[in-house]
């Protein structure tokens, strides 16, 4: 299993997101006051400042906005991934998420901007939180 860096708690903004990941749920917030999508998670709406936010679960489908294949990272937690793809994925519910693209035979050739992707939750040896990553569909 991969050995990625884990989120660390207590940290009240993102803890519900990561607790969701344990249940294979990709969670995001919407403002009850102005209906704006809020991501990454926090305790106020970035559009209107309201503290009335509710949590929702995404269907986990999205489109690659951009990506890069990282060939060199001196942090040992990523050594066993080889060349790996980091990406921003525009998730269909309206939020853009930093993530990794997995499952490409050759990430330098098989990943494209605009490609459709589906979330999956990758278990880690490094801790209790599965990491939401995306795979081309």
């Amino acid at each position, binding site marked *: 299993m991969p050995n*990625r860096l*884990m989120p660390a708690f207590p*940290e009240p903004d993102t803890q519900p997101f990561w607790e969701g990941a344990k249940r294979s749920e990709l969670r995001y917030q919407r403002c009850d006051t102005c209906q704006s999508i809020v991501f990454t998670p926090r305790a106020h709406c970035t559009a209107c400042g309201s503290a009335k936010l509710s949590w929702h679960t995404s269907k986990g489908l999205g489109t690659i906005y951009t*990506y*890069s294949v*990282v060939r060199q990272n001196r942090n040992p937690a990523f050594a066993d991934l080889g060349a790996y793809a980091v990406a921003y994925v525009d998730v269909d519910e*309206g939020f853009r998420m*930093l993530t990794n693209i997995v499952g490409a035979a050759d990430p330098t050739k098989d990943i494209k901007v605009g490609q459709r992707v589906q979330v999956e939750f990758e278990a880690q040896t490094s801790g209790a*939180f599965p990491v939401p990553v995306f795979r081309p569909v």
Partner: protein
Amino acid sequence: MANQARNAAIVGIYEWPKRLDMDVSAIQIKARSIALALEDAGLSWQDVDGVYDANDGEGGGGLGLSAYLGIHPTVIDTTQVGGSSYEFQAAHAMRDIAAGKCRVAVLSYGSKSASQRVPIGTGGPRGAGGTWQENMENPYGTTLIANYAMAARRHMHEYGTTSEQLAEISVATRHHAMRNPQAVQAMKDLQFQNIRDITVQEVMESRMVADPLHLLECCMVSDGGGAIVIASADVARGAKQKPVWLIGGGEAIKYRTNDGDITTSAAAQSAPIAFGEAQVKPAEIDIAMIYDSFTITVAVMLEDLGFCKKGEVGGYISGGGLRYDRKGAVTLNTDGGGLSSNHPGMRGMFLLLESVRQLRGQSTSQVPGAKLAVAHGNGGLLGGTHAGGTIILAAD
């Protein structure tokens, strides 16, 4: 030009010559650079009444650095916005001097990134986790370079920009570096291979660090530093050097948003403010000193500063016009830039230093009769959270 304010000028500069220096601390680089920049201006230690500090080099900000220097300023500014800190600080010094809050301001930088082997571009994530941001980023292994690479990828996707076009930025800055003895020595000290002019093909053949950015599209990691003395008009008129006037300043920030465009940087907001204050147009600029952390940084900012339209930078730079001795594009980074002269982590200082050398007629790649320069610093992560500071400088 008639209504252009000329309230503050750079009157003294010093750039630390060594890029690998085992014998000094970062704060010693700062203090010694300040002393030599004051000497350049013909001013004294006790003339300083404004200290601007980026909280770098174990200085402890405006407070700690003032205590180390042994002075009692009346303006203490600790603006830290990464590599653009010095453009922000210069803008603040313009404002503070115009308001009469101080008359002689010092900005300084000192860094030991090379001798301490700091992995600036490929070391991420650096934080231990546990903040709202780290918890959403650390698990994904996004290096600093990868953020810039993702901006480059999107720029290529939207506008058809190519790696060959971006490589022109590396080629032009290396040409300037080869004319700058300090840059040549830097490349020797930092054990560069092939210390000579490079070609587009060589950039393309250098190894990929983070797609689509090749090694020769990435800045070096060096030691270094320097200092700048900014003075009021009355002090500047009596200084040893011809003043280089600060005629416009703009600052802005940008961060990733759910529907945001990462091919546009904070410069798109800071530049119109600076050019508006200066009452000049990009077409009038002789020298563009743009933070070349990576080729894509320069490409995006040439567009955002107004040298060409958004999406058209590939064509704008592809003829090799960025060189000081060629036409077709603005002259770029005549000291050799972060790509080939020095990059200790926050390059904004050097953008101002080389602008001043050009406007004094002292650059090693001098543009004859240069009258106007723009220095644009970028701090943080292009494609992510970053700050942009634009300063317009004019010869006396």
